[in-house]
């Protein structure tokens, strides 16, 4: 790699948009991927279909990254609002490509060192919204020039991205692209050109967490999905609709979340692996049924892809403010498992585990995602399909039943898990219920039976802790400073940890992947630190409170909270921690 080649490039495309604005970043992504870069792609949109301000962000980096970069190297701004929004994040040597159709650029707040290219998009007759694609191809012409990519390579990518369009549309786009190239080449003053590296890397997947979680469920034998659309979880439903048919997956769009979760519950009772997916408001509606699955001991997997709450909140913005609801919501005491993947690859792995765990422990398993993990695309290593092994827990079939003298659906066992015959199995007739009942499934409010049943259910967790996914941890075990965060924080925490370590700070981090029950390792990690920064996207420090409740030392916990719908940046976090540390 040559010294002036970019190791890390952040591009933002923003304007009054709609989906079109993603096109530029995706063509560019294709190009960078071919050059061996890793990608992290996200967007920032309003909750409306067209119009409203929308931004697409793309990070290309030679090291794998799980979050956006601190600074924007190249901004493609279709209006002033885009510039104002991005101004504080512009890299000192950044470039802004500005659409002058609606007026000149107001440079206020922009460092002089930033290169500005004003493109009179109007001149290229692309003002008509219906020809947005040309606008994108035109800007890609400019962009590819700045990145000193030769025409053939760029057109190649363009063609690939538009492969589903008819040839005449492709040609029209290439013409627009050429205009952009020409415009750039004729600029009186050209900005410094950037050079991309060209390295080999293994083939990766560019995938979102929502897609990966659906894939993991499928790989782990999931064959029934009932859902109801909701931002930012809808893609899980859409994925199983798209890919499920090949595997015979039954997918139902229900009339609401109550129906969705109860259909999944019904299917789960037949022994089919079943899942539903939703976001905060829908998950709130599902509370009663989650308690029911806990009581009746039915394997049920529920994805909650969190968005900014409370209530309708900000549907397209990220947050981690349903931790409390996932861990503590719903009526009564019952065993549940909450798993929180740290990125799309982990989404796949934990979806596999969740699907198995539900079978093994016969209880609800919740997959805690957040909007970023759910919807941002990241390059990740191919999923390890060979490692997917199905666990069936205590399912019994007709032959086994025949050898048993008694079959009690809610038999009180040492590990709390009871044998389970599904409907259709001769000799396995039984009652499944959310009432308290005896071992036979018959309603009982006998106090002693009640105690035994509550204890039995709790024992399912207590005696199976070894099955639960361990956290992701790095750094010197003796370090006094710790970072702790879940879900989408992993990407940024890893980067912060690397940077601070590089500066000589002795620091370690933990991303718990089992959120409930809180594992000993989590409390041990917390209590092994003098100071542990618990990084959360919510206002109430829900994760920190959870840890405290489970025995973490209060003194060491420092909460770093953000709840404005925007992700943390690594630089931002480093600065916060350094400032805090300086105060010690």
């Amino acid at each position, binding site marked *: 790699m040559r010294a002036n080649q970019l190791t890390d490039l952040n591009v933002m495309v923003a304007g009054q948009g709609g989906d079109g604005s993603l096109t530029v970043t995706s063509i560019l992504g*294709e190009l960078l*991927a071919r050059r061996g870069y890793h*990608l992290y792609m996200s967007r920032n949109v309003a909750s409306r279909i067209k119009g409203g301000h929308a931004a697409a962000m793309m990070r290309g980096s030679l090291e794998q990254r799980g979050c956006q970069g601190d600074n924007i190297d190249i901004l493609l701004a279709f209006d002033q609002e885009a510039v104002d929004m991005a101004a504080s994040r512009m890299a000192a040597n950044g470039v802004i490509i500005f659409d002058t159709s609606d007026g000149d650029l107001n440079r206020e707040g922009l460092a002089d060192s930033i290169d500005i290219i004003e493109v009179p998009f109007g001149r290229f007759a692309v003002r008509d919204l219906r020809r947005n694609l040309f606008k994108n191809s035109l800007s890609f012409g400019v962009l590819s020039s700045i990145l000193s990519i030769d025409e053939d390579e760029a057109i190649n990518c363009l063609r690939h991205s538009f492969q589903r369009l008819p040839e005449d549309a492709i040609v029209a786009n290439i013409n627009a692209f050429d205009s952009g190239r020409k415009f750039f080449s004729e600029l009186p003053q050209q900005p410094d050109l950037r050079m991309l590296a060209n390295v080999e890397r293994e*083939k990766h*997947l*560019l*995938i979102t967490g929502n897609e990966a979680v659906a*894939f993991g469920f*499928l*790989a782990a*034998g999931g*064959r*029934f999905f*009932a859902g109801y659309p909701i931002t930012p979880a809808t893609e899980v439903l859409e994925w199983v609709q798209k890919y499920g048919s090949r*595997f*015979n*997956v*039954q997918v*139902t769009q*229900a009339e*609401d979340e*109550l*129906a*969705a979760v*109860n*259909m999944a*519950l*019904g*299917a789960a*009772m*037949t*022994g*089919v692996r*079943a899942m539903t997916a939703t976001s905060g408001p829908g998950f709130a509606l599902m509370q009663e*049924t989650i308690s*029911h699955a806990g009581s009746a001991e039915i394997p049920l997997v529920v994805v909650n892809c969190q968005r900014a709450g409370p209530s309708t909140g900000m549907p397209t913005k990220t947050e981690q403010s349903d931790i409390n609801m996932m861990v503590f919501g719903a009526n009564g005491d019952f065993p549940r498992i909450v798993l929180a993947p740290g990125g799309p690859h982990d989404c796949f792995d934990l979806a596999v585990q969740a699907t198995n765990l539900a079978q093994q422990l016969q209880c609800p398993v919740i997959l805690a995602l957040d909007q970023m993990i759910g919807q941002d695309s990241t390059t990740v290593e191919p999923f390890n*399909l060979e490692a997917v*092994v199905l666990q069936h827990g205590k399912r019994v079939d007709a032959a086994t039943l*025949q050898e048993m*003298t*008694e*079959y*009690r*659906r809610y038999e009180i066992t040492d590990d709390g898990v009871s044998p389970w015959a*599904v*409907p*259709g*199995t*001769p000799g*396995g*007739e*039984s*009652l*499944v*219920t959310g*009432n308290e009942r005896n071992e*036979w*499934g*018959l*309603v009982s409010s006998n106090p002693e039976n009640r105690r035994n049943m509550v204890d039995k259910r709790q024992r399912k967790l207590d005696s199976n802790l070894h099955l639960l996914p361990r956290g992701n941890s790095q750094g010197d075990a003796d370090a006094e400073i710790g970072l702790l965060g879940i879900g989408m924080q992993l990407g940024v925490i890893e980067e912060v940890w690397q940077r601070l370590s590089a500066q000589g700070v002795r620091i370690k981090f933990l991303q718990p992947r089992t959120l409930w029950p809180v594992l000993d390792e989590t409390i041990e990690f917390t209590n092994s630190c003098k100071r542990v920064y618990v990084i959360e996207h919510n206002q109430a420090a829900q994760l920190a409170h959870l840890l405290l409740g489970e025995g973490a030392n209060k003194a060491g916990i420092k909460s770093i909270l953000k709840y404005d719908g925007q992700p943390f940046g690594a630089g931002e976090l480093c600065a916060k921690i350094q400032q805090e540390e300086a105060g010690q």
Partner: protein
Amino acid sequence: MTKTFQPGDPIWCAGCGHYGVRNALQAAFQQLDVESHQTMVLAGIGCAGTLQNNVNAYGFHAMHGRVLPAATGVKLANPSLDVIAVGGDGDGYAIGCGHLVHSFKRNTGVVYILMNNGIYGLTKGQNSPTAETAEQAFDGVQLGLSIAGSSFIARGSSAAPTQLQKLMVAAIEHSRAGRGFAFLEVLSPCVTYNDTYPKWAGRMVDVDTITGYDPYSRTGAFTTVHDLNAENRFATGLIYQQDSIGSERQWLDSGQAAVCDLDIDPALQMSDFREIMDDYGV
């Protein structure tokens, strides 16, 4: 034989209409040689929603109002089961009303027996949607007729056991024939809080006794039911049917296997999984 649960005794008050429903259901099971392990009885919450404890089958107690989505999930996952959903009028017409509408529309082959007593029995006597009070009483049969997808709508009474058994058999057969959702409302008095045995007596009109009545005509059925209601009477019998294809049968007819029968071993699907990964390759 493996010993498994023995159905318990009903918890109902002496004289409760729900006994008649259980008896007719058991008789229908017998008449059709229904195998207990191939049958699942799902129940809502309420006095009516305890019937599953008193029959020999796989049983499930759903949350209040959610018996239909749960039963739909069961049937879609394992269409070979006889899936019987039962519940009260509070369960089905109040809290579960939205699911009822969509069950008619979706037309999945669940048999749904709704015990209508005009009251909330288990919570001690509040009005249900069918209560004859200031508000207009609600008629689930009319509701069913208004949904284009509905394919079997019947009403019986626990005071007319022969007809009731016949309707149950017809409902199960409709579902077994793959025609879809079979809805059977049973007038089943609550002797403790709303003893409608006397109130309802003499007001039921079996559509079979109406000359020229055509259960295949939706608008004809609607008019008959409506006009009888206007005279303070109830249509009973097999009120409407359609030779539709149930959603679970459509699935099977399209050549797909029941999901409960699939071999889900990941080793068998490796190449398909890899193809998906290729879609994401960069």
